[in-house]
């Protein structure tokens, strides 16, 4: 099993020494959760990993998970000044190093130590606002109840910070484990299950969580208010898979991404040639999972555009490449063909060529006639990403955009009174744990200010 960066962690003190500790450092601005990156690296460079861990933990209760799966190349590392001297600082590895060392000291399983936190940083469009929780929570009102729907990273973060501010928090979760996408969906080779679960549990054990409660089925927004909750934070994520409109999707051997990423039944299936349709991070997760399960198989990613246009993190693409995932660029699948017993047999594709630039800024693929080809396969996975359940949201009275994401204002407040939303459910570009944490933190503070009715929101 390949755990990226495992070896690099040994050189972390040396790596921390390379950090320039820039003034107004870009890494601090580029971390959605507002972690003071340059300051934790400075602590590390002085040998103080406990101090480093505290700085990370102050702003991100899921710092260890993020240190495995954060796409640093598009976040904190993006504008690293040290890159101009050769190579950007490997911030994620340093974060992992600090937390792993801390854990070693405390012999195991404590991640989030729930230390006294008085200040948190909120990153709003590259501006860091420091909020003193202790000060603002010092009020005389009776303890109000807040409901959090969804026990993913975002919901748990909100719950945690509201708890610190003195609220009664109840978290509703539709699954039987907390963690959301961290628990259900991120494959083991990117984040070992044990680590993800352990850190999620270190936070979830502090909170009152009601499992098996799904919005729309077991609970509803209006009912929660009737039950006496003063505010609601919606962090239900996006779980509805984008469907593939293709002939042959009813054949045996056709799967959806969730079948691969969440279930384990597929591992018993014999496959030699598998095709993954889609080109996002989910598709790559699926392809790598397939490749890992059967190293002798050929795993194709079929994509109608070129490698440049793939909506995927560079690092993930390289990982897939290294592990032997085969990319079929400029290929558009048109039909999945089955054999007599309705098993998937091959996939029919047409060649495309990059055409004019469309609204997304990418070249629109145009079909080239006469270059059709067939790929013999025995397994197809459609991994086209996820979307929110729009109908559910509308039935709860929420206003969504055309893709089904909840519309929120700059304070993460929805159209409903005292209902806030954050995480994956409020936008396409929010597909990281760190962004979910950032939203959760911001929501907690905004909910608090809103309930205090001070009329001053931090944006």
């Amino acid at each position, binding site marked *: 099993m390949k755990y990226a960066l495992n070896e690099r962690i040994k050189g972390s*003190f*040396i790596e921390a*020494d390379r950090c*320039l*500790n*820039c*003034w*107004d450092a870009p890494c601090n601005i580029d971390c959605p959760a507002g972690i003071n990156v340059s300051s934790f690296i400075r602590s590390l*460079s*002085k*040998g*103080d990993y406990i101090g480093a861990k505290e700085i990370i933990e102050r702003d991100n209760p899921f710092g260890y998970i993020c240190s495995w799966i954060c796409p640093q190349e598009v976040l904190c590392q993006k504008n690293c*000044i040290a890159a*101009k*001297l050769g190579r950007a600082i490997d911030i994620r590895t340093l974060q992992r190093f600090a937390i792993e060392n801390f854990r070693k000291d405390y012999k195991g399983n404590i991640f989030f130590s729930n230390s006294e936190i008085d200040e948190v940083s909120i990153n709003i469009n590259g501006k860091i606002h420091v909020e003193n929780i202790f000060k603002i929570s010092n009020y005389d009102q009776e303890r109000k109840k807040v409901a959090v729907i969804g026990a993913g990273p975002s919901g748990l973060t909100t719950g945690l910070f509201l708890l610190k501010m003195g609220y009664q928090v109840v978290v509703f979760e539709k699954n039987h484990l907390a963690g959301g996408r961290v628990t259900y969906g991120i494959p083991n080779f990117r984040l070992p299950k044990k680590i993800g679960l352990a850190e999620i549990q270190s936070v979830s054990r502090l909170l009152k969580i009601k499992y098996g409660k799904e919005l729309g089925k077991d609970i509803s927004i209006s009912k929660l208010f009737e039950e006496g909750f003063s505010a609601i934070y919606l962090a239900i994520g996006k779980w509805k898979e984008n469907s593939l409109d293709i002939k042959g999707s009813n054949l045996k051997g056709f799967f959806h991404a969730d079948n691969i990423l969440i279930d384990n039944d597929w591992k018993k299936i014999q496959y030699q040639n598998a095709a993954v349709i889609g080109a996002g991070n989910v598709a790559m997760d699926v392809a790598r999972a397939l490749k890992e399960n059967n190293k002798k198989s050929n795993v194709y990613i079929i994509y109608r555009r070129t490698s440049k246009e793939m909506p995927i993190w560079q690092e993930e693409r390289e990982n897939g490449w290294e592990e032997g995932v085969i990319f079929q660029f400029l290929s558009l699948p048109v039909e999945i063909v089955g054999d007599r017993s309705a098993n998937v047999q091959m996939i029919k594709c047409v060649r495309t060529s990059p055409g004019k630039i469309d609204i997304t800024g990418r070249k629109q693929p145009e079909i080239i006639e006469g270059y059709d080809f067939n790929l013999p396969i025995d397994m197809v996975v459609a991994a086209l990403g996820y979307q929110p359940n729009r109908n559910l949201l509308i039935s709860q009275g929420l206003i969504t955009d055309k893709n089904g994401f909840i519309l929120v204002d700059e304070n993460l407040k929805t159209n409903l009174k005292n209902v806030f939303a954050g995480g994956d459910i409020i936008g396409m570009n929010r597909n990281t744990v760190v962004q979910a944490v950032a939203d959760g933190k911001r929501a907690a503070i905004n909910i608090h200010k809103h309930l205090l009715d001070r009329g001053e929101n931090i944006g």
Partner: protein
Amino acid sequence: MVKPNLEVEFCNFRCENPFLLGASPVSRNGEMIERAFQMGWGGAITKSVALEQDLKDCSLSPRFVNINNGGSNIKPSFRRIGMTNIDFRIDESLKDTLDSFAKVKKKFPHKFLAVSIKSEYKERNWKKLTTLAANTGADALELCLSCPDSGKDNFCCSRSKGYQNIEQSIGQNESAIKNVLSWVKEMTELPLIVKLSPNVSDIKKIAHAAKEGGAKSVAAANSIKSISGFNLRTLEPLPTIEGITSVAGLSGPALKPLVLYYVSEIKKEKITDLDISASGGITCAHDAIEYLLVGANTLQIVTEVMWEGFRIIDELRNGLKRFMRYHNFRSVKDFIGIGNRKIKSSSKDLSRNQQNIYNIDKDKCIGCGKCYVACRDGGYEAISFSQDRIAEVIKDKCTGCTLCKVVCPVPDVIYFTDKNNMENIVNES
């Protein structure tokens, strides 16, 4: 082109180059010295031998601490500024040690070998040790009078307890030095090197005492008394030996500016005929040349060898040759001490006519903002830093202190121009 000659005259001996192994674990026995000689080292001062080394059966453990550029000294780092040690000692018997020294001297007659000796402040011991050491055929003897970790009952260290009731090492007391020298001189004709302690208020007086006592040379300086720090978790000091530690000796690059000053001071005293052997944080040819410029005759290298091995001799020799070719020096003697006349003892003696201001090369600047924050909080608030990370010197405010250049991570981004000339140019245009 003239071929540079690296030979130096030291203690009446012609060393083939000025690079010597200092008295330390790197010259613990004959085999190690032999290996260094084969690689091209000009000579060696052996690890100090003592009569007491036959009595005790083992050294302390641990003995070394890595001194980082701030923060925990436990963590590994490439940014270390030195190393502290406590109680180096040879674990072999005195006879075996001296025999191995004799053997290597016999094998390499053209290499300089001085045996270092140390003892308590007892005439009998010094005389006995001198006779033994002189019999090895060494070219000189070094008297180690200044172990930094000499303590009350520390047997191995050259302590002058009992002498006028002063609790200090011999190296800190002028008359004690003279006495020891007189004892040693009774027993041998060999040139004597006195290893000076940096822990003195005026190193020149000590050098004078050594000269008056009849020493041929002084070695400046021993490691400096220091405390290596603490493990904050356990509240135990470093290096921890059953929960406690002793005062240690600091060596390594951190010492260079200090010992450069000492060597320069001794050289400026113009004590005729007194050779100076410098040791203190020499890591490369550049450091070595600096020591030669302030007046050292030979250079003793220890800490860097302990870190990097005998192999650094190639770089040292080549670097020195390159320097000599660049300046057309035929022999090392041509430039020993020439730097001293350019060093005034007080900044009052310097001209205030030279006024620089600094400029930032925008093309090379990487925008880290370190100069901005340094100048703002530690300078004259003379650098502005814009939203798009462009640093600029505010020319009216800049006083040319160079702090910006100290913190800048990129070479040649910050350069200075003459303040007065700049004004002229502005006026003309």
